[in-house]
């Protein structure tokens, strides 16, 4: 049994989830993108999650990931607190609307919307290189 499998068993998690967590975290740290854009496709195409559940699980996983990032990054004093407060004031309301929409949209539409979002991000990354 590999170390990954032993660690996964101790945490009570599917080893693929551990790999996705580490891989998602690594790539997000490396590239400065959110973990979700990496984790959602891996959860769907590799771990066999439905599109809706993948989005929900990804959002939950982002909580500890962003806490760690804020602590490593934010402490450096680069955070603009008032800008963050203004953005967060809006995004907290928006997040409710988005999550309710996620709960209601059918899987096929979700896949389409997420796929188009990924494509747009990929093109932006290629253009802004």
């Amino acid at each position, binding site marked *: 049994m590999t170390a990954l499998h032993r660690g996964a068993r101790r945490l009570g*998690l599917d080893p693929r989830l551990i790999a996705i*967590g*580490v891989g998602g*975290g*690594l*790539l997000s*740290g*490396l*590239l*400065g993108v*959110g973990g*979700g*854009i990496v984790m959602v496709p891996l959860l*769907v195409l590799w771990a066999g999650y439905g599109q809706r559940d993948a*989005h*929900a699980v990804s*959002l*939950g*996983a*982002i*909580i*500890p*990931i*962003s806490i760690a*990032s*804020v602590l490593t990054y*934010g402490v*450096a004093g*680069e*955070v*603009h607190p008032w*800008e*963050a407060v*203004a*953005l*967060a*004031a*809006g*995004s*907290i*309301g*928006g*997040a*409710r*609307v*988005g*999550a309710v*929409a*996620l709960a209601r*949209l059918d899987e*096929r539409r979700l*896949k*389409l919307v*997420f*796929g*188009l*979002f*990924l494509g747009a*991000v990929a093109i932006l*990354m290629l253009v802004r290189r």
Partner: protein
Amino acid sequence: MTGIALYAALAAFGVLTGAAAGLLGVGGGTLMVPFLTLAVGLSQHAAEATSLLVVLPTAVVASVVLHRRGIGDLPVALRFGAVGAVGGVAGALAALAIPGKALRLIFAVFLLVVSVRLVRDAIVSR
């Protein structure tokens, strides 16, 4: 932009990114960082640090809404996210040592391939 107009624009943009984040299962940094650098004029580092601070409450609110509706599995998500956090710190440190351009290119191609596959699946499964 300065003063009240700036903060009003930020809050309005926040509503947009929050909605996208909740729907798409992402944090929203992909949208906020370009906005903060291009429209608000923050440096790349400041934009990333500031956006991270917004991602956290956004993900918490969306997760609570979804958990109440019984979608996903929050305890599992939090545990594998904690593992991911370790990867995130390692990745941020590695970013300083690895040529970013090649990596971004590979990543963009990966996203493009996944995007085509998801859109195709969505259309085929009609």
